[in-house]
């Protein structure tokens, strides 16, 4: 019992308020990095063999 209480108090003292700011900043950095990686993957492409081509038949295009 007594030992548990003292451990809880120890934790309370070590987790200072500014730690949460660091945690939030870290989360934001990870989120931004994730978005950058995902978007760079979505931008990259390949070479695609198309089987059925759509002829440009819409009246809006002039060619």
């Amino acid at each position, binding site marked *: 019992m007594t030992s548990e209480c003292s451990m809880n108090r120890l934790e309370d003292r070590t987790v200072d308020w500014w730690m949460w700011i660091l945690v939030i900043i870290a989360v934001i950095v990870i989120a931004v990095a994730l978005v950058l990686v995902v978007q760079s993957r979505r931008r990259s492409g390949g070479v695609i063999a*198309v*089987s*059925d081509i759509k002829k440009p038949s819409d009246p809006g295009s002039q060619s």
Partner: protein
Amino acid sequence: MSLLIRASALTKKPVVTLDGEDIAQVKDVLYEGSGGSVIGFTLSGRGLFAGPKNVALPWSEVVGCGRDAVMIASDQALQEQQDLVASHDIGERNVLGARLVTDTGVDLGAVVDVIVEAADVADVVGYEVEASAALGGDARNVLIPLPDALSVSGEALMVPAAALDFVSDDLAGFGAAVDDFRASLRGEN
């Protein structure tokens, strides 16, 4: 005048209007599976946070396709992607990574790149494969010329076995190799 380009060199290239604005970059190179003619490009946005775009660029609207950019007259050149190609065709038929097999049933290796001959009309004229045992087996990539008519499916690409007589190691001599190969095919017919 024509120019041989690796398709991988086209992807990520900026699409620039004659007014000097980079409105997109190349995502996928689309070509007709049976004839090999390049249909156009799907596009992505520019910038680190940009993703794919819904518009595509037909090859007929390309003014210039060079080392550093794809030039178009204006953003009027772009059209809705669905108008150019059916959406189910994209994402499933990437030939990069597909196996290249001869009509005699020899697996030549995985396609790592596609060679495009760019002129007024652009054509796919060759595949670059990671050399397998059938091609000597050393670690070099080799370029394999293609006939006028192609055969492509989701899993494999077919080439005539005769193409193996016209392989080359680099783009410099490849244009002549393609011409020789196609001439020899016409001679046989």
